[in-house]
């Protein structure tokens, strides 16, 4: 599996990529929406994992732009929302089924990645 990770917290996204690599998942990472679009234009990813709250292009907006480029791109959204109340409100607003709260449990992320692929 080859995935793209997008989050403005570089230390988070680079470390997550390293951990995924240990589990046999190749992960490219970038820290903003513009770079993410460049990556999406340059190659095919099985799954894109997008942080919702980022400076500039938000994750939700980025998801829409990615789908303009590739309507079939599978996307998982993640967020630092602080509680289940925040999480529920965010999920409802985004209308996204694949939505994970930070801190992310890596096994659950991988499970979601496999689920969304199928």
């Amino acid at each position, binding site marked *: 599996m080859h995935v793209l990770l997008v989050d403005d917290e570089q*230390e*988070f996204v680079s*470390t997550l990529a390293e951990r995924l690599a240990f589990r046999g998942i190749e992960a490219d990472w970038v820290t903003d929406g513009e770079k993410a679009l460049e990556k999406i234009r340059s190659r095919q990813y099985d799954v894109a994992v997008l942080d919702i709250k980022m400076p500039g292009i*938000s994750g939700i907006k980025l998801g829409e732009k990615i789908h303009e480029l590739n309507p079939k791109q599978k996307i998982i959204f993640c967020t630092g929302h602080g509680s289940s109340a925040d999480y529920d409100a965010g999920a409802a607003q985004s209308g996204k089924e694949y939505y994970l*709260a930070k801190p992310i449990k890596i096994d659950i992320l991988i499970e979601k990645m496999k689920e969304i692929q199928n």
Partner: protein
Amino acid sequence: MNINWDTAGPEGLTFFGGITASISHELNNALAIINENSGLLEDFVLMAKQGMDIDPAKLLTLSSRISSQVQRTETIVGNLNRFAHSVNSAAGKRVNIGPLLKLAAALTARIVAAHEVTVEVNDADQEIELETSPFLFLNLIGRCLEYAAPMTDDEKKITLSWQQRADKIIISLAGLSLTESCSFPGSEGEKAILSALGGTISADSENHARLLTMPAEPRAATKQKTNDKTTY
């Protein structure tokens, strides 16, 4: 007008909620980094158990990253605590304006970052004390920064500075493109806060700034100050 923490009405509570939600988001981001680094440490331990050589320098780097995020978290929690205590002396107290502006900038950092904007507080400015309601003052500066964020020039940086001129304290938000009209204060709550603190907003075209001018001495209604020794 009698100043208290509820002078802004429901909008004051909305501001409090918005800031605390933003801070919880910031805390979760720091926790997420700690979680990934501790997870990677666990991965290395498992690899070591399987006989793989692990570079101690790599382990030290991960440990150092965790410490750094713990420090970040301590700073965020400290700011949250100071913000929470800002309602303690709503009727007014003497505060040093610099630290209070720094707190306002820290509390709204993530909100203005949505516009790719940063806030710098000018440390070189003189130490000035002001008698004010800390909660309403933070509320006012926070709202000004939120309004200013989409109005910045190409540098995308708002510089907060302050000075005293006669009986006025002038707080400058510089780095703004003044081609856009300023709609602050817009809501009833914003007007109530500005009025309660005796403030006015004006433009400084020469320095590309908006100026918030406030009385250096409290108005009659604000003179019920407390002896709260909290520092900002």
